[in-house]
């Protein structure tokens, strides 16, 4: 168990700057998820943490100790790979035992005959065997102990890879998209299994994924990464409700956040949006800004002539209503409970309002701007929610 501090890590491959001064600290026992689109450098950062690549600049501390100069096997980390990377010629039990054997038996005691002759080696092996059995039991692998990886399903291989990592009892677990090769149903199942495993072990986890749902559901800390930079590190709910950057707001949340162009008016109010947004922006009048509105923060009203319904998607528990605002021609999606839009059809005339305090304002480059909003008047929205 250990805290993890990553400080100003940069990495280049040739002329490409893959990581650009990445810094993040998480406390002992955290579940840190690195999330971002493919190719943004997540795996590279994880491999640097593991010691499989060397950073060009920056430092790494595990439990307060600098580890940059240490070999992977000396860093007290264990890693689970996307492709599982099991040893094809070893059984499940051997795959899980190997990191312990390599750590605890000196080379000469690992020779086949030695292990049988030396009482000391024999007792070490017996202890390792007990730990491997415990790990296999925990992961439901006991009946598969003698199989080879080719004889296992994807989910079973995944478990073996987890087992090989957890017998080590490392200070930090590193997982690189461990669920991306599983089918959708198994993925949901393994998601909760890994989250439970984290709860039970209490070890620091660093989990890489491009899937925002995994990031939001499993983590204590989410780090959103794009083009080699960390845009924001925060709890899942903060990332969602209080994004520091428009790209974070756009990456997290499905359907995607609506982005509307707007301008700051004389008294800081927003103008040119095509729907009323109360509040004042901390920016000079006349500044062009971008207004971010989550689909579930929009209130749809029939009539009023502000927009036209262009499509309706019914997912069962809720409906996604796409509409085009008359004022800006911008497409907007609202997330509505079926009861509130029964009988609504494509082509209907609607108007929109924003739940007070939910609008997010960003400058032209995407940085978040302060936005003061008046307190909600009681009863104002009773007729819609």
């Amino acid at each position, binding site marked *: 168990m250990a805290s993890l501090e990553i400080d100003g890590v940069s990495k280049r491959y040739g002329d490409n700057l893959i990581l650009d001064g990445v810094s993040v600290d998480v406390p002992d026992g955290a579940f840190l998820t690195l999330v971002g689109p493919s190719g943004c450098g997540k795996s590279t950062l994880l*491999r640097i943490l*593991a*010691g*499989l690549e060397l950073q060009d600049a920056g430092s790494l501390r595990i439990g307060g100790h600098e580890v940059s100069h240490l*070999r*992977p*096997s000396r860093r007290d*980390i*264990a*890693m689970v*790979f*996307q*492709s*599982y*990377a*099991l*040893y*094809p*010629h070893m059984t499940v039990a051997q795959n899980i035992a*190997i*990191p312990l054997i*390599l*750590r605890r038996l000196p080379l000469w005691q690992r020779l086949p005959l030695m292990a049988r002759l030396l009482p000391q080696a024999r007792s070490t092996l017996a202890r390792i065997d007990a730990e491997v059995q415990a790990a296999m039991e925990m992961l439901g692998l006991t009946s598969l102990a003698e199989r*080879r*990886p*080719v004889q296992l399903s994807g989910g079973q291989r995944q478990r073996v890879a987890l087992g*090989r990592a957890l017998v080590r009892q490392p200070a930090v677990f590193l997982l690189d998209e461990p669920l991306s090769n599983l089918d959708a149903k198994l993925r949901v199942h393994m998601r909760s299994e890994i989250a439970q495993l984290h709860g039970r072990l209490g070890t620091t986890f660093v989990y890489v994924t491009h899937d925002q749902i995994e990031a939001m559901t499993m983590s204590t800390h989410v780090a959103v990464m794009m083009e080699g930079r960390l845009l924001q590190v925060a709890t899942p709910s903060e990332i969602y409700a209080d994004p520091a950057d428009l790209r974070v707001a756009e990456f997290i949340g499905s359907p995607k956040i609506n982005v509307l162009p707007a301008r700051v008016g004389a008294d800081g109010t927003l103008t040119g949006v095509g729907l009323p947004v109360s509040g004042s922006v901390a920016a000079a009048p006349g500044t062009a800004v971008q207004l971010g509105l989550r689909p579930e923060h929009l209130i749809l009203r029939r009539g009023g002539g502000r927009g036209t319904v262009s499509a309706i998607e019914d997912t069962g528990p809720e409906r996604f209503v796409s509409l085009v605002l008359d004022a800006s021609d911008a497409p907007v999606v609202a997330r509505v409970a079926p009861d509130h839009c029964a009988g609504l059809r494509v082509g209907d005339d609607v108007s929109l309002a924003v739940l007070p305090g939910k609008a997010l304002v960003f400058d032209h480059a995407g940085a978040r701007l302060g936005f003061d909003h008046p307190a909600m008047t009681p009863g104002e929205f009773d007729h819609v929610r």
Partner: protein
Amino acid sequence: MSGGHRLGRLARAVRLVVLTIGAAVMLAPFIWGLAASFKPAAEIWSGSLRLLPESFHGWENYTAAFNRAPLGRFLVNGVIVCGGILIFQLIFAIPCAYALSKHRFAGRTVIFGAVLIGLLIPIHVTAIPLYLGFARLGLLNTYAALIAPFAISVFGIFLFRQFFAAIPDDLIAAARVDGFSEWAIIWRVVVPASWPAITAFAIFSVTSHWNDLFWPFIVIQSTDLAPPALGVVYFRRDESGVDFGPMMAATVIVTAPLVVAFLLAQRRFIDGITLSGVKG
């Protein structure tokens, strides 16, 4: 539907016939040699194309073969030389191929280029410089002269590099995290995943050196050190006139170990050529 089926069968029959003819052409000299090893000299020279001997002379030919030349010695030499060559080739080629396929280092492309160039240079080009070198070192007419020139096989390096490239990088990374040293990764992770390639290479190597006449002919004078192919040549030279019956018997004895070894390793050999069977 049934017409297509019949066409498929016809195509298969044609393929079978062509392959059979090809195989027969390739095998004919061996079969003729095998048949001759059971015939008396008069029958071999009779000019008729009979396969089976009229009078069975096998016992005489084979005992003559063993009596007139140290065939056993030739076979032992073959095992020593081919085994020695193969062991050194594996010891050098496997780590080299591993470095070329899984490590990034300055000069990697240049070294691989050198390997490719090495593939193009036949032994006949280097034979004379090598001969002079061994002569200077006083190593002519030794096992070392038979083994050393082949201890590093660029073909082996090339074959293994291609095979190792297909081993997932993650597997190597996992081994490093688990605590394998680089040498242990080679011998305990990469090699066990590469048996098909190693078997294929072993067969190529052993066959070519078992049958090699060119190099032993240059560096070996003593019968005691002659590998099988050279031994058969001595056998012929030592006799006044050519006695084909016993000579064919000797050839059969010398070839048999290879045929048996190939049949035993056949499956892995074919796996290795198609470079499959590594993903797990």
